[in-house]
């Protein structure tokens, strides 16, 4: 199974710009399927970006975030070749982690 996380991190001297795309249904729990039954809530609760042992970006997400969420941010520090660790946890306890190299 391929990773559910795609990351692109590029360093431009002082700062590192990070883009990530996560594959997740992000069901809010308010939507019904074709048969009229409620699709149970299933969404990412926390996303973490870790660089050099420190969290550089942590997001608490909820039902309002859309399917296959996309994140873009930048942080001070980080240089080419450094590892960036990304992980998420959803409300069912499922989780995925990946490590990307800063370019």
């Amino acid at each position, binding site marked *: 199974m*391929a990773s559910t996380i795609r990351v692109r991190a590029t360093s431009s001297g002082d700062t590192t710009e990070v883009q990530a795309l996560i594959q997740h249904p992000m069901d809010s729990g308010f939507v019904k399927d074709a048969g009229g039954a409620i699709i149970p809530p299933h969404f990412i609760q926390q996303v973490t970006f870790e660089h050099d042992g420190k969290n550089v970006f942590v997001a608490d997400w909820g039902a309002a975030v859309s399917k296959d969420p996309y994140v873009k941010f930048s942080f001070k520090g980080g240089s080419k070749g450094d590892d960036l660790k990304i992980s998420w946890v959803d409300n069912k306890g499922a989780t995925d982690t990946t490590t990307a190299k800063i370019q």
Partner: protein
Amino acid sequence: MRSAIHLAPAVVALTILGLAAPKLAALHAAETVDPAADARAFRNYFTGKFPKVKLEDFVNGPYSLNADMRRQWEEIEQFPPYEFSLDMGKEMFAKPFRNGKSYADCFPNQGIGIRQNYPYFDGNEGKVVTLELALNRCREANGEAPFSYVKDEMAALTAYMAFTSRGKPFDIKIPDDPRALAAYQNGKRYFYTRRGQLNFSCASCHVQEPGERIRAEVLAPALGILNAMPIYRSEWGGMGTVSRRFITCNIQTRGVPLDPQDDDYRDLEYYLSYVSNGLPISGPGARP
């Protein structure tokens, strides 16, 4: 006043006489089908309407006509939403069926870089065969259940096949076979026929009004519209195939959609692909 009324039938009679001759000529012209001339006229219409747009850029749909949307799209393309589907398609394509064969065995050149040749006219069957149809036939021939034509697996497979063909110009051929010409003609008829409660034809939006807004959307030009298939549509929150695009269009005009891969849809895809001959495959695409 009275004399005017009295004269009226005579005027009508004269008009009918006067129109009869050109009308007959027009009917005769419609009977001789010339796809190559159609394609030239079709292309010239769009290049004339949008002289600033480069020919190969029409495959980028609304982005070729709207600078603001283009900027957003260029940013989206750095991280395209169809990437997951593309990866899934690549994986599926490489994975053998239970009998040990794979998709590659069903297609020329192992299925790589051949999207631009579909749909083609199959002389044995006497009908148009689309890529989606060929994929499901490949599955069935190898004892696998066919996929839904509209999304998910089918979109993933066609996304991968389009991706390996990016940049190759559409090369649809109409063989010297009256049935092929009839299929082309039927596709053209379907494209220009008004239907649905809104009384729209495909051409009403995609020939008459490309670049204009329909609510919040910008209409894509019909020239090159299939080159970007399959597409990730934000509106759908996922991927969709050519079949899905046709069905949605019919529903949006409040018409009754056909079944995916109905003969009319196959012919329509044949016509639309043919008139975009020479324009590069750009799929999979991303659309609002």
